C-alpha cells in the first residue's frame, strides 16, 4: 500500500513533534515543540511532566504541521506515530491521537519504531545514500551500531550493555553541577579543555561490538572525589574524548568489516561537535562517505517518523489499531 502525504507524530520522550512528509523524502513541514525548558528544572525527563505536556502540546503542534505543509486535513493519506521505545505514558499520547485521527479521516494508521525512524532521518536529507551503510545511533536512551543493507533490512551489530552514551553525558553533567541536557554543556565546555588531561577508560574498545559507558561515568566520579580541584573544562574534554574514541573506533571497524559505502550518525549525541569532527576524519582517512545529519534531524522529530512510515506502509500495509505502546521495543532483526 502507498500513501503520498503522511502525517507523522513523535512523543517518545522530550519532544512533542508532528510533520507532513511526501513519499518518504519530501519534508513539507516539521514542527518540534521542545520540552527542554520544562525539564531543565528537574535535571532529566520527568514522566508525569512529559506525558502531561505531550497532551497539552500535541494538537496545536499537529495543527501547525498541517498548516505549514499547506495541505487540508483531507489531503493527509496516512497517520503514523512512534509506538516505542520510550516512556510508556508519553508514547500512549501520540499513538492514541494518531489512531483517532486515522479513524476520523478514514486513512491508514502506521505504528513506527523510533529507532527505525532515526535510521530514516538520514534519508530525508540525503535520499541517495548508498548501502550498505553503517549507522551509529547515539542518544540519551540508545547506543547502537547498525548495518543497513537495504531499505527496512538491517542488522544490529552491537548496543550498550549498561548506560547509553547520552545518559553518561547527562549523568556526568549533573554530577558536576553543569545542568541539563548534559551533552551540549559538556560539548561547549570541552572547547576550552584539554582532552588528554585525564585518561579515562575506553571500555570494551577492542572487543566485540557492544558498548559500555558505566565505567567511564564511575571513573569521572572517582577522579573528582580525589582531585576536587580539577578544572571542569579539562574534565569535560577528557570525558568526552573517552566516549567519542570508543564510538568512533567501533564504527570505523564496523564500516571496514562490512565493506560499507558510508558511515552515518543518528540520535541526539550526533550533534556533538567532537564526534562529528572525528567521524569526518576517519571517513577521509578510510575513504568512506561520511553523512552527518543536521542537528534538527539528529534529535527527535516527526519527519523521520513519517519517512519510516512511508517505507513500512509500502512493505507491510497499515498497522492494526490494537497495537499498543511498547516502551522496550527493539529493532526488528532480519
Amino acid at each position: 500500500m502507498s500513501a503520498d502525504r503522511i502525517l507523522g507524530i513523535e512523543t517518545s520522550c522530550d519532544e512533542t513533534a508532528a510533520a507532513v512528509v511526501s513519499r518518504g523524502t519530501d519534508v513539507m513541514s516539521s514542527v518540534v515543540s521542545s520540552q527542554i525548558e520544562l525539564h531543565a528544572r528537574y535535571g532529566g525527563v520527568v514522566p508525569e511532566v512529559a506525558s502531561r505536556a505531550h497532551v497539552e502540546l500535541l494538537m496545536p503542534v499537529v495543527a501547525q504541521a498541517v498548516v505549514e505543509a499547506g495541505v487540508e486535513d483531507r489531503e493527509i493519506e496516512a497517520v503514523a506515530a512512534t509506538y516505542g521505545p520510550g516512556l510508556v505514558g508519553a508514547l500512549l499520547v501520540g499513538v492514541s491521537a494518531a489512531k483517532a485521527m486515522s479513524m476520523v479521516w478514514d486513512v491508514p494508521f502506521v505504528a513506527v519504531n523510533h529507532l527505525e525512524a532515526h535510521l530514516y532521518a538520514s534519508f530525508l536529507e540525503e535520499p541517495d545514500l548508498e548501502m550498505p551503510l553503517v549507522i551509529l545511533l547515539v542518544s540519551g536512551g540508545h547506543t547502537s551500531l547498525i548495518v543497513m543493507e537495504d531499505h527496512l533490512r538491517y542488522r544490529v551489530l552491537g548496543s550498550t550493555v549498561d548506560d547509553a552514551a547520552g545518559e553518561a553525558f547527562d549523568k556526568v553533567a549533573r554530577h558536576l553541577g553543569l545542568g541539563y541536557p548534559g551533552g551540549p554543556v559538556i560539548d561547549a565546555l570541552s572547547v576550552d579543555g584539554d582532552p588528554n588531561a585525564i585518561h579515562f577508560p575506553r571500555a570494551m574498545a577492542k572487543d566485540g561490538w557492544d558498548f559500555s559507558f558505566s565505567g567511564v561515568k564511575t571513573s569521572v566520579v572517582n577522579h573528582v572525589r580525589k582531585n576536587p580541584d580539577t578544572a571542569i573544562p579539562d574534565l569535560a574534554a577528557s570525558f568526552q574524548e573517552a566516549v567519542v574514541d570508543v564510538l568512533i573506533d567501533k564504527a570505523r571497524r564496523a564500516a571496514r568489516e562490512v565493506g560499507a559505502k558510508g558511515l552515518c550518525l543518528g540520535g541526539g549525541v550526533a550533534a556533538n561537535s567532537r564526534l562529528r569532527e572525528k567521524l569526518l576524519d576517519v571517513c577521509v582517512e578510510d575513504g568512506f562517505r561520511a553523512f552527518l545529519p543536521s542537528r534538527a534531524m539528529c534529535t527527535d522529530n516527526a519527519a523521520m517518523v513519517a519517512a519510516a512510515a512511508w517505507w513500512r506502509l509500502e512493505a507491510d500495509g497499515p498497522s492494526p489499531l490494537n497495537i499498543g505502546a511498547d516502551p522496550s521495543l527493539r529493532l526488528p532483526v532480519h
Partner: protein
Amino acid sequence: MILCATESVDGTRAVAAAVAGLVAEGDLLVLVGDLGAGKTAFTQGFARALGVDEPVTSPTFTLANRYRGSMTVNHLDAYRVEALAEAEDLAIPELLEDGVTLVEWGDNILPALPAAHLEVRITLGEGDDDRMLELNPAGSSWQARSRSLAESLDEWIVR
C-alpha cells in the same frame, strides 16, 4: 543490618547473586547509592542469578525494564523522578504482582514504596573499585530471612 565489602564490580554482582537465591515472588529491593556506586551492576548480578540471559541495561531512559528468567525481574529507576506524585507513573503495586522488583534511586520515592523491602545501600570505599553494601531488611518477611541472608553472604561480611 548486614554489612558487606566488595573489591570489584564482579564482587558486587556476586553479592547480588547470593541475595537473589533468597528472594520470592512479590519481593522488593530498594537500591540506594551515588552515581557510579554499582546499582545497575547489582541488578545485573541479581538478574543473571535468576536466569536472565539478555543484557541488563540502565533503566534511566525507559524508567522500567522487565526481564524474564526463572522469575520475572522488574528493574526500575527513580533517578529522574523527583516528586512523589510522579512515582505513581511507575505503577509499582502492579509490577510487584509479577516477579521481583528492584528500584534504583529508590530513596527518591521511599514514601511511595511498600514498607516491606530489602534496602541495599551501596557506598564507595577507599580504593576506586571498593564498595560497602549495607543490607537493611524491613518488614517481617525480610527480617525472617536476615539469618539466611547473613549465612549466604558470609564470604563478604564485615564484622
